[in-house]
Each structure stands twice: as structure tokens, then as C-alpha cells.
């Protein structure tokens, strides 16, 4: 057992309190909590920006903020939500749950773990500070397409530094997750016995390591084009702005899967628990996840059909994109089959997981519509695209994050959350999120462009509905903050197993999970644990 102490050597005996505890912690649970709290704060910041957007679009002709600031809001909303809210939430969940699920005492590289987190608040303070600089924040959309992104102020340099820092944090986090999963599994925890959440994160971490350096390369070239006289993307100097789009989306499409694969993992944990059955088709889930990850590298140009490309290329990217619907369909089939004839109950985590399955699928279907080249010529850069990616990201990624918080918070805090309030939060969110985003499909089909601060009067009604939905949905998330806060402070004590149908090593440790767990690796083949391992055996 001597080697089990390797991962958290210096955090065992002395325990600093107060700020020092959080600044210097190398404990995976504390770092997980830091990530989750950071993410929640950034959700509120990004949400406030979204409400500025929806307020401006409430009616035509409003001039609540000036157009330049509106553009900064659409850009910053996306950057904050993607890089500071959704991604850190998943990393926080990985920190908390991956060691618990594979029977490891901590992450493999605990000190690097501390760095991975603490880079983030600095990176995003830097990013947000650009809003207060004389030239304002970035306003060219989160994709930072040149030439537009090169025509703003000097604050671009800070934005690029923030993106680099955030990328370094993500890469370090991914290295840690891969090193942990490959080297720290308890004896008997073979790869094909790992919980699906661990599998999806393993694959996501490889995606991150493959594409974050590509994003870094793209923004480095933007930096030198803007400040050091290069012409990578400058046609006048012999460069090509379309080159940027290719590089960006070679990062960008895998990035959208980075934001959904861990969500698939979460849903694959929750549905079996509340159906009281094993996950249907575990092995096919693993292969489907790997196929989606592989395919995500060969579809990038579906984001740029309208810039023009050879017919053969357009056809290739169209069909490659549609092929992703196959492994995705396998997953949806497996979730439904897991529920089939299960004894289902509908606690809040399950409600959010079911909401995910239904509403994410709507986003997947609009995605297939967008993949059809001639149709995309019509839909591209309209609100139809906005509707598509908000279904996959809000009712997809964010709903899965909500589901996971309700599912695991009793293990984190030792208390049950308030189930009645949780259900109200679910139904409130589900109703209003559809009021918010469904009309945007119609706006897009009718031709309303995205990223504009004002619009023609024929778009009024759907915009009014959408804005009302936005404000109501936003309000509902304050209830979520309250529920989490209340649960952290007290409440009905949680049992160790928490949920009747829950399986997995994380449920064999006490609630709340003590700071140190699995210092002695569990024997996964022991009868006490066998019932708790998912997977093939």
C-alpha cells in the first residue's frame, strides 16, 4: 500500500484554514469545489451579458446600449460561457468524481492540479478587464475572425493572452485526467469496467490536448498579424483570412464535442440509477463516444460552407457531419433502452437527464438540417444557428451539469437538497428555456441575422417572446443558486448510497465524502464492490 500515498504527499498532516487552504490545496475534492464555484459565478456573469443582449432585442429600435457594446456582449457572453462556465464545470466534476469512481486516492499530479485551477481566475479577470479598457472588449464574435477582429483596439492583446492562459489550464487539466485514469485505477478496475463518465472524460481530455494547441496557434498568428506586422490572414500581404477559419474550426468543432461528451457521460450515470437497471449497451457507448471524437476532426468545414469550397469538399464535409448522427443515435437508443421496463423514479437529477435526452435531440436534428449544404446557405449566420447551438449547449451541456449537481451534491455536502425546489427549478427552466430558444428557429428561417443589435419590425413578435423567456429562465437560475447554497449549509442527512439504484465506487464512501478516500485502494473484485461496478462485468 505504500504507493497510495504518492499522490497527496504534502496535504496529509497539516491543514491550513481560510484563504491559504484554498490557495494552496492539492486535494482533488477541494479543487473540484473551486472549479464548480468559479463556474457558477461565471454562469451568472455570462448570464447577465445574455440579458443585456435580450433586453436590447426586446423590441426594434431600442437603444439601451450602443451597438459597439452590444457586439462586445455577444462576444464576451460566448467566451465566458464556453471557457469559464461550461468547461470548468466539467473539469470540476472530473476532479471530484474521477478519483472516487476509479478508486484512486487523488489526481495523479495534485500540485499541477492546483495550478490548473488558479490560472483560471487570473485569465478571466484579464479577459473581463478588457471591457473597461479605452478600446473596449473584443467585439468580433467569439470566433475572432480576421479581418474584423484585427480592426479593434489594443485590448485584443489581452484577450489573446487570456485565451492562452485558459488553454494552458485546460491542457494541464487534461494531462492530469489522462495520467490519473491510465495510472491510478484500483486493482481490478479494468478500462472496460470504468463508469461511462470516466470514459467520456478520458476521450474528452485527448480531444482537448489535440485541439487547444491549435486554438493557441490561431490566436498567436492573430497576435502577430495585429501587432508584429505578419500577414498570415491579411490578403494585402499575401495571406488568407479563410486560412484562419480553417484553423479555428479545426479547433472549434472538436471543442463543441468537448462540451458535450462529459454531458453524455453524466446522463449515462444518472439514467441507470433512476431506472434501477444497468446501462444498456455499455460497450457500444464506449465505441460510440470514441467514434464521435474521431469524426469531430473531419467535419470542421461545415461551419464555413458559405465561404465557398470545391463541390467535392462540400459533399465530403456534409456527409461526414451527417455520419456523426449515427453514433449519437446509438447513444440515444441506449438511454431509451436503459429506461425500457426499468422501475423508474423521477427525482430532480433524472428529470434533468430526461430533459437532456429530449431537448438535446432537438438540437441534434437542427444540426443535421444545418449540415445540408444548400440549406445552410440559407440558414448560415441566422438565428437558426443560434437556436441550434443553444439547444445543444443549454438544454444539452448545461442541463447535464445541473443534473450532475443534483445527483452528486448529497455526496459532496452530506445533505439532501430540497427536492420540491429542485423539481420547481427543473420545470421552470424547461418551460422557459423553450420559450427562449424555440422561437429563434423561426426568426432564423425568416432571415434574421445573428449578432445584430437591431432588426426589422417583422421579427418583433418572436423576439419579444424570446426575451421574456430569457428573463424568466435567468430568474429561475437564482433559485438554483439558492438550492445549492441551502444544501451546502444543512438539511436532511444523506446516506452513503444516497440513491436506491446508484452503483459505483463513489457511493461506497461516506457522505459527505471525507477529504481523503481510497488511501488503500478498494479491491474491485470483492463482493462488496462488484455490485458497484458498471461496465461489462
Amino acid at each position, binding site marked *: 500500500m*505504500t*504507493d497510495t500515498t*504518492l499522490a497527496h*504527499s*504534502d496535504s496529509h498532516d497539516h491543514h491550513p484554514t481560510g484563504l491559504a487552504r484554498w490557495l494552496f490545496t492539492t486535494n482533488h475534492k477541494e479543487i473540484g469545489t473551486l472549479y464548480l464555484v468559479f463556474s457558477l459565478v461565471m454562469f451568472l456573469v455570462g448570464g447577465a451579458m445574455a440579458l443585456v443582449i435580450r433586453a436590447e432585442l426586446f423590441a426594434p429600435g431600442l437603444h439601451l446600449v450602443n451597438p459597439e457594446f452590444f457586439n462586445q456582449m455577444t462576444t464576451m457572453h460566448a467566451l465566458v460561457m464556453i471557457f469559464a462556465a461550461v468547461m470548468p464545470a466539467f473539469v470540476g466534476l472530473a476532479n471530484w468524481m474521477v478519483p472516487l469512481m476509479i478508486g484512486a486516492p487523488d489526481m*495523479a*499530479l495534485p500540485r*499541477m492540479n492546483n495550478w490548473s485551477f488558479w490560472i483560471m481566475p487570473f485569465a478571466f479577470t484579464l479577459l473581463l478587464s478588457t471591457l473597461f479598457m479605452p478600446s473596449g472588449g473584443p467585439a468580433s464574435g467569439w470566433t475572432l475572425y480576421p479581418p474584423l477582429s484585427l480592426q479593434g483596439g489594443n485590448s485584443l492583446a489581452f484577450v489573446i493572452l487570456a485565451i492562452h492562459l485558459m488553454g494552458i489550464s485546460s*491542457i494541464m487539466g*487534461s*494531462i*492530469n485526467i*489522462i*495520467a490519473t485514469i*491510465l*495510472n*491510478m485505477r484500483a486493482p481490478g478496475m479494468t478500462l472496460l469496467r470504468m463508469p461511462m463518465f470516466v470514459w467520456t472524460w478520458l476521450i474528452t481530455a485527448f480531444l482537448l*490536448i*489535440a485541439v*487547444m*494547441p*491549435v486554438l*493557441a*496557434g*490561431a490566436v*498567436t*498568428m492573430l497576435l*502577430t498579424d495585429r501587432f508584429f506586422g*505578419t*500577414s*498570415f490572414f491579411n490578403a494585402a500581404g499575401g*495571406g488568407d483570412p479563410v486560412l484562419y477559419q480553417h*484553423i479555428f474550426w479545426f479547433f472549434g468543432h472538436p471543442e463543441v464535442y468537448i462540451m458535450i461528451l462529459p454531458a453524455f457521460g453524466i446522463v449515462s450515470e444518472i439514467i441507470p440509477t433512476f431506472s434501477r437497471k444497468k446501462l444498456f449497451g455499455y460497450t457500444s457507448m464506449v465505441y460510440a463516444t470514441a467514434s464521435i471524437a474521431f469524426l469531430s476532426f473531419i467535419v470542421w468545414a461545415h461551419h464555413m460552407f458559405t465561404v465557398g469550397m470545391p463541390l467535392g469538399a462540400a459533399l465530403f464535409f456534409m456527409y461526414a457531419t451527417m455520419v456523426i448522427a449515427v453514433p449519437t443515435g446509438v447513444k440515444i437508443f441506449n438511454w431509451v433502452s436503459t429506461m425500457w421496463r426499468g422501475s423508474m423514479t423521477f427525482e430532480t437529477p433524472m428529470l434533468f437527464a430526461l430533459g437532456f435526452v429530449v431537448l438535446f435531440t432537438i438540437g441534434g436534428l437542427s444540426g443535421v438540417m444545418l449540415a445540408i449544404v444548400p440549406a445552410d446557405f440559407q440558414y448560415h449566420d441566422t438565428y437558426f444557428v443560434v437556436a441550434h447551438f443553444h439547444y445543444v449547449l443549454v438544454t444539452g451541456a448545461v442541463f447535464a451539469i445541473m443534473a450532475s449537481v443534483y445527483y452528486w451534491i448529497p455526496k459532496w455536502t452530506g445533505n439532501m437538497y430540497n427536492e420540491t425546489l429542485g423539481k420547481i427549478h427543473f420545470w421552470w427552466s424547461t418551460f422557459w428555456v423553450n420559450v427562449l430558444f424555440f422561437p429563434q428557429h423561426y426568426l432564423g428561417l425568416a432571415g434574421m441575422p445573428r449578432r445584430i443589435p437591431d432588426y426589422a419590425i417583422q421579427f418583433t413578435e418572436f423576439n419579444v417572446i424570446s426575451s421574456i423567456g430569457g428573463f424568466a429562465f435567468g430568474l429561475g437560475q437564482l433559485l438554483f443558486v439558492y438550492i445549492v447554497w441551502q444544501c451546502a449549509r444543512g438539511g436532511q442527512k444523506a446516506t452513503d448510497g444516497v440513491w436506491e439504484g446508484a452503483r459505483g465506487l463513489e457511493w461506497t464512501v461516506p457522505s459527505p465524502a471525507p477529504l481523503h478516500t481510497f488511501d488503500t485502494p478498494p479491491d474491485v473484485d470483492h463482493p462488496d464492490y462488484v455490485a458497484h461496478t458498471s461496465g461489462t462485468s
Partner: protein
Amino acid sequence: MSPAGQSSSPKRRAVLRTAWALVAVAFGIYALFVGRAFWQGGL
């Protein structure tokens, strides 16, 4: 780096080998995209 007395553990060495290999991959990809571009005359 690794705390004193632990770098000898085989598990620790496996962890570090994995980590450094991944660092090399990340830098390699960055170099492929940006280093090569500079080399070929972006400047």
C-alpha cells in the same frame, strides 16, 4: 517536481512518463501549426 523520496516509485514514474508524453504532444501540435507557419515565411 515530485516530492522527495517519491520519484522512485514505479507508479510515480509511470504518471510522469504519461504526463511528459502528453506535454510533448501538445507542444508538437502547437509547433506544427504555428512554428511551421513562421518557418515558411510568415514573417
